[in-house]
């Protein structure tokens, strides 16, 4: 940034934002690197660590990571790294014993998603962090879904690196962070003018970064109240759906679950058709069905949790948010049974 008056003002605004975010994580400002997206942060963490620490050749991730960790790891596998994907149980919780068996002196990093973007299951990152710290292995967590919603303390949880995103917490798109604990050996993947302490060359997206800081501030302030409010609405939606529709079940953990996530599989329906029918009635949701993805593959997260393909095709995810009201939940509970009934009527399976 420039030294003239306007440049300094901009720089101060960015630094203020950095401070707010660092504080929310119990980190130091110097440890926060601004990036353009969580995808970029996740690419940077795996590829940047791999390049800076060539003596270690093993990368451990979970089998329910977001595609940006998964595909970065698979790319590194092509470069000669050994990639281990830890299994999860049927609630989507990473099997800790498997981690303890796999982690060794050759392990470069363990990267586990804090809360699943698909099924909302929250991992015990503190336990994982302790295991990694004891072994002297870097621990990264993708907190894109949890930051701002679940309390995170990088020191207490022994987190070395963490990804968080702006737009998941009502900030503008185009800003994210990578927390990099002081002393971590990591190289940049973008080379240029040396912005962000040399780790991320690119003109800083000032407006988005400032917006992210503002969004984090609001989340921290409102979290306690909002958690109570959303939890009640979430549970009302889950209970209501399971009660009023037959042959369906909740995917993911009941208790260790994001307050804004509901993921339910319905037998004998394919998710895309339900999604479209709901959208027509003003309800926006998503599905793990292959038919709605570009790859025509069902959700790898649901498959890793032990669902078979038809069970994944029949899954729907509803995300609650700051503007979700009780009336919205009531509306979904009124419409969803009608839509499921309609789609099931078209099917040859009775």
């Amino acid at each position, binding site marked *: 940034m420039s030294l003239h008056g306007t440049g300094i003002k901009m720089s101060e605004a960015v630094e203020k934002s950095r401070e707010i975010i660092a504080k929310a994580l119990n980190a130091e400002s110097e440890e926060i690197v601004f990036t353009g997206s969580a995808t970029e942060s996740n690419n940077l963490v795996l590829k940047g660590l791999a390049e800076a620490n060539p003596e270690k050749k093993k990368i451990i991730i979970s089998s329910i990571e977001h595609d940006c960790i998964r595909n970065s790891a698979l790319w590194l596998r092509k470069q000669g790294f050994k990639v281990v994907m830890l299994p999860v149980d049927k609630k989507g919780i990473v099997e800790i014993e498997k981690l303890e068996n796999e982690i060794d002196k050759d392990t470069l990093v363990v990267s586990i998603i804090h809360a699943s973007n698909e099924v909302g299951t929250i991992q015990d990152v503190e336990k994982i962090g302790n295991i990694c710290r004891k072994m002297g292995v870097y621990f990264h967590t993708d907190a894109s879904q949890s930051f701002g919603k679940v309390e995170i303390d990088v020191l207490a949880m022994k987190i070395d690196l963490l990804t968080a995103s702006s737009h998941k917490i009502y900030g503008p798109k185009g800003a994210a962070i990578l927390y990099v604990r002081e002393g971590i050996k990591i190289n940049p993947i973008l080379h240029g003018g040396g912005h962000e302490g040399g780790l991320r060359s690119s003109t800083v997206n000032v407006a988005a970064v400032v917006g992210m800081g503002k969004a984090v501030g609001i989340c921290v302030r409102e979290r306690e109240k909002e958690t109570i409010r959303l939890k009640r609405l979430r549970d009302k939606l889950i209970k209501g759906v399971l009660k009023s529709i037959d042959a369906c079940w909740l995917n993911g953990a009941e208790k260790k679950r994001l307050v804004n996530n509901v993921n339910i599989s319905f037998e*004998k*329906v*394919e998710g*895309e*058709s339900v999604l*479209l*029918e709901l959208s*027509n009635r003003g309800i926006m949701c998503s599905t793990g*069905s*292959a*038919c*709605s993805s*570009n790859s*025509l593959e*069902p959700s790898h997260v649901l498959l890793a949790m032990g669902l*078979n*393909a*038809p*069970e994944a*095709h029949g899954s729907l995810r509803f995300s609650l948010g700051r503007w979700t009201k009780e009336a919205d939940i009531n509306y979904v509970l009124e419409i969803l049974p009608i839509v499921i009934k309609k789609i099931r*009527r*078209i*099917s*040859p*399976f009775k």
Partner: protein
Amino acid sequence: MRQQFSYSKKVLKHFRSPHNLGKIKDADGVGEVGNLSCGDVMKLYLKVKDGVILDVKFQTYGCAAAIATSSITTDLVKGKTIDEALAMTNKEVIESLDGLPPIKIHCSLLSVDALNEAIYDYLNKNNKKIPEFLEKKHQRSVTLEKMEGHGA
């Protein structure tokens, strides 16, 4: 890099209000194709008299495109002779729906397969001559079913 995924109005119309939905209890021919693992299963029922398709109904498990292609296929074959119905291609299905997203073209193939299977069943049950291409297609779909199982 342009990416588009949207259904035509016609697809959405057929999806939301499918034509000829249901089953025919005393059907003269029934065809079932697809499998649960892939997310599409179509079942098509025919009522045939004097070589003409008098009635046709369908039941489909699948996405909006699978439901719409099934629905338009029943519209297209109703009143046609068996020979005319056998000449139908997935291109006609796609054109009648004002197009399909590229990733959904397979649904149009599946609906024609369901129709062909139903006609095969009708010809077979009535000891009528089965065209060579239809026999080959039927054998292929039987083999596929054996290989892939029937979903869960």
